[in-house]
């Protein structure tokens, strides 16, 4: 694997209860870049992220991170590798019994022998980076959705990871908070020299901050390219997605027999 590729995914497959979720995904994530994985709800984006983090074992294919084969690692090896990863969950997943400060300090206290003074300085720096140094004493219940996401972002980068993964970082945010989170993702990635993988369906924000985009549909990569290539794309799927069109290759209705057939069948217990 060339040195500039941090994550190399080859023919990745994953089945859930016999239903194929990922069907042969191939991706190369270069170091230092912010890469978005986009697609409609239920297309396998989060599953892919969890396979990269080793939280799910794929049914086929490979995920290589640096020189490590993620799918073949033991639990102990995975835990060692995850110390170099950070992850931002959809709604932050802050520990509700800890203050903002303790949440950000959590990975530092768990994985380092630093003194409390050193931890304090580092936590302050991380909170300063996300603009929430003044909120360090608040509990997660006292934060807005956007603030919670920023605290979670500070926690995700507390150990200066080489790879940061974002699971739907923009969900449920107002336009201002959304823009702030987007800019933070880009700035932190560049400042830390990290690599970011972002799973989202917010096309407009993503086009502003990412270096490369993969589109997933039905568990497969259906399109990919730089933001400029995506904007200029004539691919029907990309076009439908970028311009939020109702008609196109992605169907609105869940697969079902025809309505006529169902109505004529009479009442049966479902």
């Amino acid at each position, binding site marked *: 694997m060339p040195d500039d590729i941090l994550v190399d995914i080859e023919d990745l497959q994953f089945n859930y209860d016999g239903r194929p979720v990922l069907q042969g995904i191939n991706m190369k994530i270069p170091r230092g870049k912010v890469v978005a994985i986009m697609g409609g709800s239920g297309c396998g984006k989060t599953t892919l992220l969890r396979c990269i*983090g080793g*939280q799910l074992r794929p049914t086929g294919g490979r995920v290589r991170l640096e020189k490590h084969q993620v799918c073949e690692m033991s639990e102990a090896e*995975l*835990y*060692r*590798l*995850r*110390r170099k*990863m950070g*992850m931002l*969950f*959809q*709604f932050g*997943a*802050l*520990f*509700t019994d800890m203050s903002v400060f303790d949440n950000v300090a*959590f*990975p530092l206290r*768990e*994985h380092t022998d630093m003194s409390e003074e050193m931890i304090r300085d580092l936590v302050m720096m991380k909170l300063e980076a996300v603009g929430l140094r003044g909120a360090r004493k608040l509990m997660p219940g006292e934060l807005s959705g956007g603030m919670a996401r920023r605290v*979670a972002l500070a926690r995700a980068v507390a150990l200066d990871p080489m790879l940061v993964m974002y699971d739907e970082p923009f969900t449920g945010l107002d336009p201002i908070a959304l823009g702030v989170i987007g800019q933070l993702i880009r700035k932190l990635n560049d400042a830390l020299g990290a690599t970011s993988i972002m799973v989202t369906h917010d096309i407009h924000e993503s086009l502003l901050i990412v270096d490369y985009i993969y589109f997933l549909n039905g568990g497969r990569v259906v399109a990919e390219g730089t933001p400029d290539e995506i904007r200029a794309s004539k691919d029907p799927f990309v076009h439908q997605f970028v311009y939020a069109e109702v008609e196109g290759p992605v169907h609105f209705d869940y697969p079902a027999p025809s309505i006529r057939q169902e109505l004529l069948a009479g009442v049966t*217990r479902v």
Partner: protein
Amino acid sequence: MFSPASLIRKLGHATVERIWRLGFAARFFVAILRLSGTSFRRLPLTLREIYFSGVLSLLIILVSGLFVGLVLGLQGFETLQRYGSTEALGVLVALSLTRELGPVVAALLFASRAGSSVTAEIGLMKATEQLKAMDMMAVNPIARVVAPRFWGGVVAMPLLAAMFSAMGVLGGWLIGVVFIGVDDGAFWSQMQAGVDWRYDVWNGVIKSFVFGIAVSLIAVFEGYDSVPTAEGVSRAITRTVVTSALTILALDFVLTSFMFRGAS
């Protein structure tokens, strides 16, 4: 459509599901034991859980113990009076509490008060992805979240049972000696003579320790295995209370049949 075949299929499916879950619970228990190092190395984590499970359950345990003791005193006096042996009230109250009521009722209360809250906490942590987040931060949630809560419950339970029994004895004394007028000296001396440290008290402690393991395991398992939705967590809490109650009563029968077989 109902058919015998579908009934058998459903029954078989439910049975297999339960056996599978029981196996998962056993593996989960082994994982807790294997990953308990953190709970002992970082004692504040476990002490915090002893506080939440034990200290915060004290009020309900003490008040319940007092009322059970009061009732035992009244009922015991009424029965003993028929045989002219009211001075044996102390020993009756003490034996009832140390052997049976202390461990069993305290465990039932513990399951409802502390067990349900542990299940809710772990279940909600799962529903809000806090356990997944911890796992992604290379911190094992069983070691960091589950094991301290398990050991917190195991340590707190015998202490609570002892407090329950002590409060019950006080209740029995209050009703028998203070209100009814049983002889104070007879009450305590009969108790001292009739209660054997190893046979009665120690067996009661063993019982409460076993109940502590059972209730704590059920509580953490139900939380960890809950469906991560509001409905799933509420069902898990209900299962904790119901399964704990049945397990306590069944274990009590088994332990009693081994411990107290008419010896002495």
